[in-house]
């Protein structure tokens, strides 16, 4: 770890601001809820319950606030639109993180609220301030019933959302999380029992919302919290409509490394490089949507995704399109072993097999999206440092292709150089990506524009060491990746890389045509695990100086 909880939560300005605002608002709402109950003379009878009713009312208002917030980070389409304009204000890529923070605080305040109500109802029964028993309130009135149901739903949703469960059985998480629909209904209906009232009996009426606000003196918070719910529901319907627009799977290509490339034609689908989509194949499952990174550039006439057969769904997909697991699994295994090298040192890896679709028609597919961070900011910096780690390299397929297209058209903006880093455990399992890199590398007219750096972090055996030592010497292509670029071994030393880059820029060697008077911008775009992100970010900050401005962005895919 190296970093204490205090350093993480309080010593980073952004996180500190979030903590102060987010938890400050929670405390404010709690205090206000408490105060407004405490000072309300109409509710004098309820105030006879003392601290427990003040606590429950305060926590209730906080929960209303959380209930209104919980769906906001899930408004994917709206976030996609507003994100580019608001990156300076909040990291919109962190929407799932924010969703979790709201959920955690919701669990805490639900505990406070429920505990206080258990005391409230106990005392209502004991003092008979209202002619009812504790269990009447718990299990026969709207507030109690919806409350207990919401708690049960929370138990199920929170436990299945644990990252361990999500990883081993995504369906369990996915389906259970749709209980949110009933949770939100429960939330909006929680106050319809008119518990907070100045009369002994609830003041119901015949018109919506079926109680009168003359005597029912709750916060009426549903009037506010229902809007994110309605917008979210509308967005889900809109996604469904959009997904039903004409979509055709035109080609399935199987790459030697075992990845299937699906080329999909959907004229209404507009996206930019670096985004991702959800894909559904009704033949396999009519409900499941699976996220994949788009690997084609917007200029391509099709949308492509690369899928490796690693889970239930992807196996079934391979079976359905005729690239059965046996076929592909053997290819994957071969690729992992690096068998292709047997074909000769310079054997091409780029050959792929197109699946013959004459036997059985290709399945219907539906795609939903695009979502996520557009990488358009790449063209606003002079030097773009693209770092992909492991599977996190996929979005850069689209970005590199896109840069290549723009290079051909001569619309690169201020972009002068691209440094591409790929940190990977076993490069051969991403053979398809190497093919793409090969194409991009071969198309470079200016050898300095794009630099590809590949780092292999796995341990290598003695045999392989000799293999590399012998084959590598004097060869035009790297024996592992078949790129002109040499593969490097071990973890990259980010601090050295950045400080060297910074020096080179300052002395004017690095970017041609810029002088030291102007501030150069170096943007780093990273996709991969968080530990690495932190190391790179620190290196970026350290390398910052008057002439060179290093920025860092972590993408979530």
């Amino acid at each position, binding site marked *: 770890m190296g970093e204490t909880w205090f350093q993480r939560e309080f010593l980073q300005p952004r996180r500190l601001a979030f903590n102060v605002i987010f938890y400050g608002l929670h405390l404010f709402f709690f205090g206000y809820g408490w105060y407004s109950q405490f000072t309300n003379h109409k509710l004098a009878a309820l105030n006879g319950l003392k601290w427990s009713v003040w606590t429950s009312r305060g926590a209730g208002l906080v929960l209303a606030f959380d209930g209104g917030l919980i769906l906001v980070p899930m408004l994917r389409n709206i976030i996609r639109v507003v994100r580019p304009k608001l990156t300076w204000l909040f990291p919109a890529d962190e929407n799932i993180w924010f969703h979790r923070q709201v959920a955690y605080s919701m669990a805490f305040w639900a505990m406070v609220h429920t505990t206080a109500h258990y005391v409230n109802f106990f005392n209502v029964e*004991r003092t008979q301030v209202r002619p009812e028993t*504790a269990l009447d309130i718990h299990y026969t009135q709207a507030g109690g019933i919806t409350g207990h149901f919401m708690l049960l739903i929370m*138990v199920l949703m929170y*436990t299945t959302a644990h990252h361990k469960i999500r990883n081993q*059985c995504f369906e369990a998480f996915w389906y259970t999380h749709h209980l949110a629909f009933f949770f939100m209904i429960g939330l909006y209906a929680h106050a319809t029992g008119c518990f907070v009232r100045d009369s002994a009996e609830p003041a119901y009426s015949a018109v919506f919302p079926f109680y009168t606000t003359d005597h029912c003196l709750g916060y009426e918070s549903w009037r506010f919290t229902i809007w994110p719910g309605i917008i979210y529901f509308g967005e889900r319907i809109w996604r469904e409509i959009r997904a039903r627009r004409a979509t055709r799977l035109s080609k399935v290509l199987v790459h030697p490394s075992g990845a299937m490339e699906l080329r999909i034609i959907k004229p209404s689908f507009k996206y930019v490089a670096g985004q991702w989509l959800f894909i559904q194949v009704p033949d396999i499952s009519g409900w499941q949507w699976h996220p994949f990174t788009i690997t084609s550039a917007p200029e391509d006439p099709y949308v492509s995704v690369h899928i490796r057969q690693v889970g*239930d769904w992807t196996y079934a997909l391979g079976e359905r399109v005729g690239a059965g697991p046996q076929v592909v699994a053997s290819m994957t295994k071969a690729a992992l072993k690096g068998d292709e090298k047997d074909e000769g040192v310079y054997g091409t890896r780029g050959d792929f097999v197109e699946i013959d679709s004459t036997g059985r028609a290709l399945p219907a597919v539906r795609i939903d999206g695009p979502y996520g961070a557009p990488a358009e900011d790449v063209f606003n910096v002079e030097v773009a440092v693209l770092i992909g780690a492991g599977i996190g390299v996929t979005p850069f397929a689209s970005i590199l292709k896109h840069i290549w297209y723009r290079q051909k058209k001569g619309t690169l903006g201020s972009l002068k150089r691209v440094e591409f880093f790929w940190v990977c455990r076993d490069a051969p399992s991403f053979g398809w990506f190497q093919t793409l890199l090969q194409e991009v590398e071969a198309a470079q007219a200016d050898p300095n524009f794009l630099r590809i750096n590949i780092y292999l972090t*796995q*341990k*290598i055996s003695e045999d392989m060491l000799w293999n590399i030592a012998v084959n590598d010497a004097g060869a035009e292509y790297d024996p592992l990746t078949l790129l002109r670029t040499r593969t490097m071994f071990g973890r990259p030393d980010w601090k050295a890389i950045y400080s060297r880059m910074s020096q080179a820029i300052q002395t004017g060697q690095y970017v041609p045509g810029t002088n030291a008077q102007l501030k150069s911008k170096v943007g780093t775009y990273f996709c991969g695990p968080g530990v690495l992100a932190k190391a790179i970010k620190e290196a970026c900050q350290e390398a910052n100086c008057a002439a060179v401005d290093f920025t860092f962005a972590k993408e979530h895919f």
Partner: protein
Amino acid sequence: MGNLIWHEYARYVSLTATVYTIWASFWGFYYRKFFWDFVHGIIRNPGGIQPAASDSLFVSIIVKAPVVQILSMLLGFGLLALDYPAPFLKNTAIHRSFPIRIVLLLLQTFFAILYYQGTNGAIYSFIAALCYTRAQLNGEIMPEAKDHKGRGGRA
């Protein structure tokens, strides 16, 4: 359904249920009430439900002295130590046994359903017991923790 490992899921439900029950039993010390007192009980104003004479046993161990609540809390801490797990229980035969958990969770359900605050804890404990039962029926076993061994030597 997918590759859900039921005992790993059951652990999260069990921990949730147990923490809830411990918290509930704590409040049960101060606001003592027999959950089932509405059966044959009469309502007095003020005073609330007066349990029927046939419930006198439960009144004496829940209302007069919080015996059930104390037992429930002790059992809760025991379950927490078993499921979290406490360091001294890690990788012991007790820790890897599902039947022990199922029995203890059902016992927790029984204790918790007796007092006013314990209802939800009882329901969640019962769900956790069902999940562990499913794990047992599926023949799942809890593997002994392995030391992390790096792998290498493959390209």
